[in-house]
């Protein structure tokens, strides 16, 4: 038996929100898995990029509890390879932003050890701040 998929209005709202923020038609994804296969960071993710897309399609806010979008390095490998032309990096960014805009930062730059911060180049800190802090 095929389980019935039920989308409540909350699910629809979340789907809409992610679609708007990312500018992507998330429902176009047909779950081929090319993104997951292309992702260099997938080993560190708890769910794969395609699973992330699926959860968004289903409007499941639980996706925000996953690590996947924080492990994403915005390398755009998925973007160039998606056969449906979806920009998954924008979807991941939308998920990050939903949390960051609630003032939930992923990292605290002040807690990076001093010797590490002295080692890191400007470019790493600036990009880290942009992606992980709101």
């Amino acid at each position: 038996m095929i389980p019935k998929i039920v989308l409540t209005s909350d699910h629809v709202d979340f789907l809409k929100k992610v679609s708007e923020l990312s500018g992507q038609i998330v429902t176009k994804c047909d779950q081929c898995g090319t993104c997951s296969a292309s992702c260099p960071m997938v080993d560190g993710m708890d769910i794969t990029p395609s699973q992330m897309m699926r959860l968004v399609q289903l409007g499941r806010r639980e996706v925000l509890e996953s690590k996947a979008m924080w492990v994403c390095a915005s390398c755009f490998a998925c973007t160039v390879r998606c056969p449906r032309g979806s920009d998954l990096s924008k979807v991941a960014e939308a998920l990050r932003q939903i949390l960051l805009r609630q003032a939930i930062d992923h990292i605290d730059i002040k807690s990076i050890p001093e010797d590490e911060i002295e080692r890191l180049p400007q470019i790493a800190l600036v990009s880290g701040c942009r992606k992980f802090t709101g």
Partner: protein
Amino acid sequence: MKEKKINVMERVREASKAVVTGVDDKDIEHWVDIHIMGKAYQVPADLTIMQAIEYAGYRLMRSCGCRAGFCGACSTIFRRKGEYKLQGAMACQTRVEDGMMLVQIPFSPAEKPLYDIREEKYDSSVLLKYFPDVARCVSCNTCTKSCPQDLQVMDYVQAALKGDFRGIAEGSFECIQCGLCAIRCPAEIVQYHMAQFARRMYGRHGSKRDKNVENRVGEIKEGKFNEEFDRVMGLSVAELRDIYTKQQNTREVY
């Protein structure tokens, strides 16, 4: 002649009384309406924001310091009538305008990192070590727009990312640490603390040292001037006055 002198002092007193003892309504011809924290007051048109607040009846304790634009205590934000722009200014250095809405910002909450300037490495990494928040700058330029000293604040924050101590020192030298930039920064950077650190680093490690002062400190320590001091200090006032007059006549001017 004696009577004239008294007269002079009385005239001086009379001429400055508005700034000395507070404004007297009967001397005022032009008035403006302003809003202090939302409450309307009519005040003389010729006053600074600070004088107007006092005229309205506030006795200042916070938000008032040197009253001359140096100390940064009287940070004020305001909007002019019909304007969407939020302006920053020092209350003691800005004239009230009709329709102005204002509030003073007495304090900028911001922790200052602790360091020992003598031990720090003169290297770009030290700036980000103490002020990693600088990496959050989005170059929106709000800091520059809010600076009452008209400094190019964003440029010196950017200089920090580039590790350019001299750029920060020169760009921030006239900073009065009023905190308006930090209060308004969307990236929550504390510009003035960073600049203070960078200026000291530049002063200590980045600029050349003066040799004369070094020599003179040594000479004094060796007691080079002791004999002459003893001689001069032993002179009578009349003798000293004589030397003084000669010295003044051979003075360097420009």
